Structures are given as structure tokens and as C-alpha cells.
């Protein structure tokens, strides 16, 4: 007779994770959830805009907001599964190490979340294709899928670790509570606390690693006897936490958030004032490729500066309008410049990719929650925005010649007339 483990080595983690995933995959609930995700994706994919940008952002936002609750519930229950089924004694009397079992169980459950996420995005993609007849800018879905996958990783790992360590799924619900607080507390919570903003993804991914490592390291520590925990689960908790704190600190240090720290550059931008016949307020903001752009970089152009919310259909429609102007009148020196007002610094780039635009789509990284549009970002403040979307048309000397807001920015002849007038008055 042989000692099974010494004769056979260690079971590979992927095989364990696959087996863990299989435990729930066969369930009816899982199939229903996948179908529901496909259906939800179908509706989300119908978002407006000429390209897939807005559909991708909307799908990503829905995944980060609502699928996160599914993740919290699912992983909390996964953590308590053995207790609920009475399988604890059978499973934990086996020679598999605690950390591998904890990690495999998490990975197996997370793979199922990714399946749901894939179903959501697949539904949105198919819907987008069938409703618009094109898959232009579909790579935006990839970006948003990645963002949502990281957000779900954080939510699920935190819920899993808390439920596992406390041995009750109720502890995992604390993460759900955190989500509710962030959704309701935009007026008093700094941006750094939001897992679903692109600029915070590194910090929350690291925090997710911390939670997985923490659960693996500290769950049933007495079960190990004299065995030393694996290196990864000794390193991951402090390393994950350190990276999370460092990344958060960098985000705060280099960011602009009236609730935490104001950037001198952003404060200076906000101090400007836009008036007709006056020089358009300047700014230095990153475009969709990460390069800094300023109006001064393009002298002699007729600027069409559009301030928009990349999460809104109006924003996508304005961007589409600006793209059409660029195609038609770019050769006459008309340069559209979109400034995205969003707390999520990645939304603008996603919208630009999704809409297939070639002019600068800038991100106002000083955006923050405010009841008045003019208070929502330094650029919005400088341009005295009262309603979004908002467009300013300048002459070739950067002086403001027209200000348009609301529906007229993307619908009706006014914007086109204003641009044509500029071209007529100031031919090259």
C-alpha cells in the first residue's frame, strides 16, 4: 500500500480550480444567470452613438455596478459552501494544503464570474452588431471587459476572504455595503475610494491580491501543524497591501479632488473665464493615447471644443457630430477637441476608441461629483458650462465666437452653421 500524496506529488492548481468551477457550473442557477447576463447585455448593447464606445462603457459600468453585487453574493456563498452542505469534515480532512484549496476555490468561482461577464459583453456585442449593422470600435469592449474583470476581482476576493475568515456569508455582505455607500456617497467620498474608476484599478487589483493572499494565509491556521505556508501566500498580503497603498497615494498625489487634494494646475485652469470674443481658456490634458494636448499645440486652427459626459448618449452623439465635422472640414483647418468630464479617467479614451475618432479626445482628470455642471471639473468651470454637452467654436486666433449647449450641440444646424461661418470669415 502506498502513501497517495507522496507517490503522486501535488495536484495542479488549474485542475483543482477547474473541479471547483464544475461544482457550481452544473447548477440550474448558473445557467439562468448566464442567460440573464446575455439578455442584459442585449439591452445594454443598444446604447446610442455611431460606434461601439458608449455601448462598451455602459456595459462596463453595469458590470462594475450590478455584477459586483452578484460577485459578492456568489463568493460569499462559495466561502460558506462546505459549511452549508456539511462537507467540511470530508474536504478538510484531506491532505491538500489550505492555501491551495482556498486559492483554487476562489479561482474556480472567479472563473464563473468571468463566464457571466463574458455572457454580458457577448450579448452587448451581438446586440450592437445587429442594431447598428457594424462592429466599428468593438475593441472598446475589450478595454471595458478588462476594467470590469478587475473590479469583479476586487469585489469577489474581498467578499470571499471576509466570509471565509469569519465563517459566515454575512461578512462578505460588508463588501456589498461598501458598494452601496460608494454609489450613494459621491458627494462626500473622494474618488480614490471607487474601485470602478480606471485610475484606481491598480490599487484595487492589488487589494484583491491582498485579500486572496490573506484568506489563504490566515484561514484555519491551526490546520497546518508544523507546515510552513507557501511562499506566495506569505508574500501576497503585505505586497498587495503595500502596492495598493502606494498606488492610491500616487493617484491622490497626482490627481485633483476637492475632497482630498487640489492640483495647482487644475486650480489654475479653473480660474480662467470663457466669454464670447475672449480667448478660449487653455488647458493641458491627456488625449486618448495618453499624450498631453493643449490648444496652443495647434495654432491657426478653428477649434470646436466639446465638453461632454462620455457615459451619456448625448456625449456619444456630440462626438459623432464632431467626427463628421472633422471629416468634412478638417482640411479647412477645423479641429474638434473633445473634453470628457468624467470621474473615470479611462472613459474618454474608451469612447474615442469606440467611436473611431482621430482628433484629440481629452480627459479632464480633475472631474468630480458636483450638482452644478460648472463645478464638476476645472475645464467645465473655466468654460462656464451650464448644461452638458457644451460646445465652443473659436476663430483661428483662439477667440471664442460661439457657445452652444444642450441638444443643439448634436442636433440641428446651429453647430454646422457656426463652423461654416468661421471658414467663410477666415479662409486659410
Amino acid at each position, binding site marked *: *500500500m502506498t502513501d497517495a*500524496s507522496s507517490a*503522486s506529488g501535488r*495536484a495542479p492548481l488549474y485542475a483543482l480550480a477547474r473541479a471547483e468551477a464544475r461544482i457550481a457550473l452544473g447548477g440550474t442557477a448558473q445557467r439562468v444567470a448566464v442567460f440573464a447576463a446575455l439578455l442584459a447585455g442585449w439591452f445594454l448593447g443598444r446604447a446610442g452613438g455611431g460606434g461601439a464606445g458608449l455601448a462598451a462603457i455602459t456595459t462596463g459600468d453595469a458590470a462594475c455596478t450590478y455584477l459586483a453585487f452578484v460577485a459578492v453574493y456568489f463568493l460569499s456563498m462559495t466561502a460558506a459552501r462546505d459549511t452549508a452542505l456539511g462537507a467540511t469534515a*470530508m474536504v478538510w480532512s*484531506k491532505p491538500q494544503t489550505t492555501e491551495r484549496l482556498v486559492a483554487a476555490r476562489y479561482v474556480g468561482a472567479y472563473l464563473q464570474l468571468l463566464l457571466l461577464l463574458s455572457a454580458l459583453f457577448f450579448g452587448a456585442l451581438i446586440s450592437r452588431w445587429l442594431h447598428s449593422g457594424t462592429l466599428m470600435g468593438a475593441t472598446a469592449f475589450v478595454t471595458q471587459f478588462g476594467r470590469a474583470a478587475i473590479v469583479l476581482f476586487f469585489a469577489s476576493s474581498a467578499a470571499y476572504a471576509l466570509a471565509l475568515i469569519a465563517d459566515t456569508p454575512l461578512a462578505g455582505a460588508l463588501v456589498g455595503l461598501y458598494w452601496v455607500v460608494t454609489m450613494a456617497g459621491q458627494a462626500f467620498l473622494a474618488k480614490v475610494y471607487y474601485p470602478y474608476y480606471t485610475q484606481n484599478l491598480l490599487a484595487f487589483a492589488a487589494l484583491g491580491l491582498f485579500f486572496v493572499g490573506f484568506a489563504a494565509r490566515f484561514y484555519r491556521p491551526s490546520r497546518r*501543524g508544523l507546515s510552513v505556508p507557501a511562499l506566495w501566500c506569505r508574500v501576497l498580503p503585505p505586497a498587495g497591501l503595500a502596492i495598493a497603498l502606494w498606488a492610491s497615494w500616487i493617484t491622490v498625489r497626482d490627481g485633483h479632488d476637492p475632497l482630498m487634494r487640489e492640483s495647482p494646475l487644475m486650480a489654475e485652469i479653473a480660474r480662467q473665464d470663457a466669454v464670447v470674443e475672449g480667448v478660449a481658456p487653455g488647458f493641458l490634458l491627456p488625449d486618448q493615447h495618453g499624450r498631453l494636448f493643449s490648444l496652443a499645440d495647434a495654432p491657426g486652427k478653428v477649434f470646436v471644443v466639446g465638453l461632454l459626459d462620455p457615459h451619456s448618449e448625448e456625449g456619444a452623439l456630440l462626438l459623432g457630430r464632431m467626427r463628421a465635422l472633422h471629416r468634412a472640414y478638417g482640411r479647412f483647418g477645423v479641429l474638434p477637441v473633445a473634453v470628457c468630464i468624467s470621474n473615470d479617467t479611462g472613459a474618454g479614451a474608451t469612447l474615442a476608441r469606440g467611436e473611431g475618432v482621430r482628433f484629440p479626445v481629452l480627459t479632464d482628470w480633475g472631474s468630480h461629483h458636483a450638482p452644478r455642471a460648472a463645478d464638476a471639473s476645472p475645464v467645465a468651470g473655466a468654460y462656464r458650462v451650464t448644461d452638458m454637452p457644451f460646445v465652443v467654436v473659436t476663430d483661428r486666433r483662439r477667440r471664442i465666437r460661439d457657445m452652444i449647449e444642450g441638444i443643439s450641440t448634436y442636433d440641428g444646424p446651429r453647430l454646422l452653421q457656426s463652423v461654416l461661418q468661421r471658414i467663410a470669415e477666415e479662409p486659410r
Partner: protein
Amino acid sequence: MSMLTTLLEPTRGTARVGGHDIRREKHQVRSLLGYLPQDFGLYPSLSVFETLDYIGLLYNIKDTAERTRRIEDAMARVNLMDVRDRAIAHLSGGMRQRVGLAQALLNEPRLLIVDEPTAGLDPEERIRVRSMLTELGQDRVVILSTHLIEDVAAIADTVAVLHEGRIRFTGTPDDMRTAVRGRVWEVQATGPELAAIRGQYVETALQRTGDHITVRIIADQVDGREATPVEPTMDDAYIGLMHAAPATN
């Protein structure tokens, strides 16, 4: 049993399984033993084979072919081959118990610990599980915990009786019966006499035939009644031990 299977930390003292300390060398102990808990849950969505495959991975049986061989061997030993692809949710209680037994055999353990394996089973299934345990006990140590004394008589070579965490007796089933041999009696009684007999002696069984009641008792001698000495059963021996002298550590 929970301590031997390393699930529960002893408050003091220790034990060794196959030379390995249950407090310090938990991993080695777990590798040596197979354990069937009394109340255990299985994952309802998995089939029998998938369940055993998962448990095989928990035993660190890395090689797929080797794992499959052991699973099929274990399923054959407990007569589960016919239901290998059936979902656990659709198994009877007896079949689930056999899956529990099969999972405990996957690492070909030198020590098999089974906790109340026949509890809740119908008589036919109980006899089947007993036979399996008897067969398994031929080439390994089986520690069986049960409150069903007839299981012990049918399976065990050695019996230890625990009461309130202390050992009352260790020996063979025959030794156990010998401990009360000559002290087991059958007494005929009427209904009104029954209370008096129960107050005076330790009752182990009672049989009613019409108006006649036959009471089985344990006593050094029976005063003032007609009593017939009888051969002790395991039930008599067990109850006799429970009412005997204080336990030893």
C-alpha cells in the same frame, strides 16, 4: 475521531498515526488515512465520478490515469459502477453513504476511520455497508464508531467503549460479552411488577408476549423471583459496561 483526523485540535495530549504526530505532522497523517464522517454533504450538481475525481485531487493524486484507476477501483469495491454518471442529487441515502466510503478509499489508506456508517440506512443497505467494512478491514486498520452494537459484533476484532471521553473497556467482542457472562438473566413479570424490577436491576431488553412480559436484566443475583441465566449479547455487554465501575483514562 475529529482529533485523529486532524480536524480538531486536542486541548492537551497527542496521538500518533502511522508514527506521525497528529498535532505537528497533520499533512502526513491526512495522507495516511481515509475518513468517512457521520454527517457529510456532497456537491449535488456533480456526478459520482466527478465527486470522486475532485476528492482525488484533494488527495493530491496528480496523474489523471492513476486517479481514474483509483476511482474505478473504489467504485467497484462499493458497487457504484452502475451510477458513476448519476448526479449526487439523484442518489438514495445508501448510495450516498457508499460514495462517502469510496471517497475515503481513494488514497488506499492504511487507516480507515468511519463514523456511524450505517446510521439512517435501511436494513439491507446496512448489511451491505457492514460487509464492505468487514472486507476492507482485512488489509487495513478500520476504526468504526457506532451506537449500533450489532454492527460492532458483525465487524470488529477489537472494541473500545468510550463514555464521556474516557475509555470504559478495550478488548474483543467476546471479551466484552465475557465481562457480563453469568450476570444476565431473563425474568418473567406482569405489568405492575415491571416498575419494581426496573428500580432494582439494570434492564437491557424487554419482550411482551400477550400478557406476559420477559425482562432481560443484569444482576449478580436475582432475589425472590424466578430468573433464568442467559448468554449475554453485545447489547447486554454494552449496557453492563455503562453501569459498571468508574472509567479509566
